[in-house]
């Protein structure tokens, strides 16, 4: 019985930790399908987690806090999108700069607002619903619905086809009458807004406070999920569950083992697990051909 109970616990923990990985990956799939790569998801997670914690702390309004997180993502996406499209910048370098910038800003905010270097005070979290005796955040099903909707949009609608054309062959897309740069900019903004929602989830839903290591590489695990899913949001649900499961396993083991020193060792599980999974599955994926290449209009 105990074994079954811990497995059920683990599954629910995995459902909890998969949300940011799924939202981040779904957003990134939209962005990358249009031909732009944004490795700044990590930074978006951090900044959105921060801004929604701030709003939550000062107003106690959770809806407003969530919207602020999404808006934060959109603003960063707009910046990254402009750099990647009209300014023809290097997308990877810009993303790296974004992550460094986000880290700096988040610590500055912690220090100036709450006077601490590690974490904010606890804030109100999104109310959970009960299922099979376990509390679950409403964002768990919502994130899955979002992923399914994005899949429908990308693969079953004309607009989705136009978006994907920009990532497949931007010249042909332009000839079809699509404004490639504007489409890519929009895709980056929308993708980043989903990552922003994921960041808000981290602080005002899951953890209940902001800590400076709140994202802990999750932005990059979401990136791994994008490639694992072969740029398909439905597969990303499965991927997020698998990667979230590693995370859950690490948390579960460090609670069960009762040895604080071992906790550090268990913390390597999500990263090693992700690495193992991508090493097995990456070979079979098909990258959007125009991904990461600036489009220069003639």
């Amino acid at each position: 019985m105990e074994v079954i109970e811990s497995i059920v616990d683990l599954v629910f923990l995995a459902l909890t930790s998969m949300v940011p990985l799924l939202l981040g990956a779904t957003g990134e799939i939209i962005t990358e399908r249009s031909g732009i790569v944004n490795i700044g998801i990590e930074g978006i997670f951090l900044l959105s987690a921060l801004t929604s914690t701030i709003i939550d702390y000062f107003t106690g309004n959770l809806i407003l806090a969530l919207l602020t997180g999404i808006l934060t993502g959109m603003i960063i996406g707009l910046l990254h999108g402009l750099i990647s499209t009209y300014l023809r910048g290097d997308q990877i370098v810009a993303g790296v700069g974004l992550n460094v910038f986000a880290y700096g800003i988040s610590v500055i905010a912690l220090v100036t607002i709450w006077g601490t270097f590690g974490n904010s005070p606890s804030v109100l979290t999104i109310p959970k619903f009960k299922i099979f005796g376990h509390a679950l955040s409403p964002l768990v099903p919502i994130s899955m619905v979002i992923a399914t909707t994005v899949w429908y949009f990308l693969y079953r609608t004309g607009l989705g086809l136009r978006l994907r054309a920009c990532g497949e062959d931007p010249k042909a897309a332009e000839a079809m009458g699509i404004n490639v740069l504007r489409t890519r900019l929009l895709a980056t903004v929308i993708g980043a807004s989903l990552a922003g929602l994921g960041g808000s989830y981290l602080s005002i839903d899951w953890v209940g406070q902001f800590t400076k290591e709140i994202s802990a590489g999750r932005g990059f695990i979401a990136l791994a999920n994008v490639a694992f899913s072969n740029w398909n949001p439905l597969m990303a649900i499965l991927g997020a569950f698998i990667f979230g499961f590693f995370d859950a396993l690490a948390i579960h083991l460090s609670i069960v083992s009762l040895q604080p020193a071992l906790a550090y060792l268990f913390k390597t599980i999500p990263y090693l697990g992700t690495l193992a999974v991508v090493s097995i599955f990456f070979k079979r994926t098909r990258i959007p051909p125009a991904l990461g290449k600036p489009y220069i209009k003639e």
Partner: protein
Amino acid sequence: MSKLGSLLRGWRLSEYLVIIIEVCGSIALGIGIATSLLYVLGFDPGKGMALLLGGGFTDPDYLLSRATFIMMTGLAFSIPLMAGLFNIGGEGQMYVGGLVSLLTAIYTGNLLLALIAGGAAGLALGLFIAALRVYRGVNEVISSIMLNWTLYYLTIYLITNTFYDPLAPHESIKVPLSARLGFISINGFKLHVIFPISLVFILLAYYVLYHTKIGFEIRASGLSPKAAKYASLNPERAMIYAMCLGGFFGGVAGALNVLGFTYYIDTLLTTMYGMGFDGIGVALMGRGHPIGIVFSSIFFSMLIIGGQSMQMALNAPKEVADALSGIIIMALALPYAYRMVLSYLRARRLISRGSY
């Protein structure tokens, strides 16, 4: 047309000019935003920026020693970039280099062996990332970050659990005296010997990149993999070479940190944390050239130490320096934007002169 103008039409010189404008423009943009950030936070922006940019010069030895590590992680990023790879795993390569050289020093007491072991550990990690990319198609950005975090926690685990100093439990066992790199004294000015050593490594990198077949293969493959293939070079082999070299220098960064500066690793890795990422800015600002990296590493070292002195004097968070370098990196991603501004200015000048 003036003589200078006709000179500037020559490609090479104007190219250098654009690079200088780019670097200066990025720094100016970063400083502008950081200044307004300080103002918004309620600190005296003039005083803050003076400390941030000038604080590093109060202790030249610390300035150069701090530059040493990010100079090496700068090489760790720039060499793979020449072959078309984004090695953002300098952080992990530095941790593993520091850890392995610490353990080697503890068990053998041999300085040279410890230094080589640290470099070799970084090299092995770089090779692993390159092999995953070449043979399994794993994007190096993802594998690098996963390995960074793995090594971060693994090192913390080993230091807190096994190799801690019983007298100071938040620090590891110290490097034995026989395996320490000390100081040199020039006219009474004491300097950690690691800085001159890192300059030797810079020369080594320069030699390998620009005067050997391996370096040629790396540079040619990065510029155009297709052309390199036609010239019977192997871009995939070049990636492996480049990641090995980059990983080696990342490992050396950690080894020099442990053997020549701190002599231990603390349980939160505070003495190393973040320096792998600083290397990215260093490499980009140095335009990937080993000599450029020397100067940009001193610049970033100045920012990091300046941030610390600003925190001490004004109680303003030192992470303003991080925000500043983030903006500089983002601005350095935009070579085209600068060219656009330049050509716009040139066109306007010509129009206003009426010679267009």
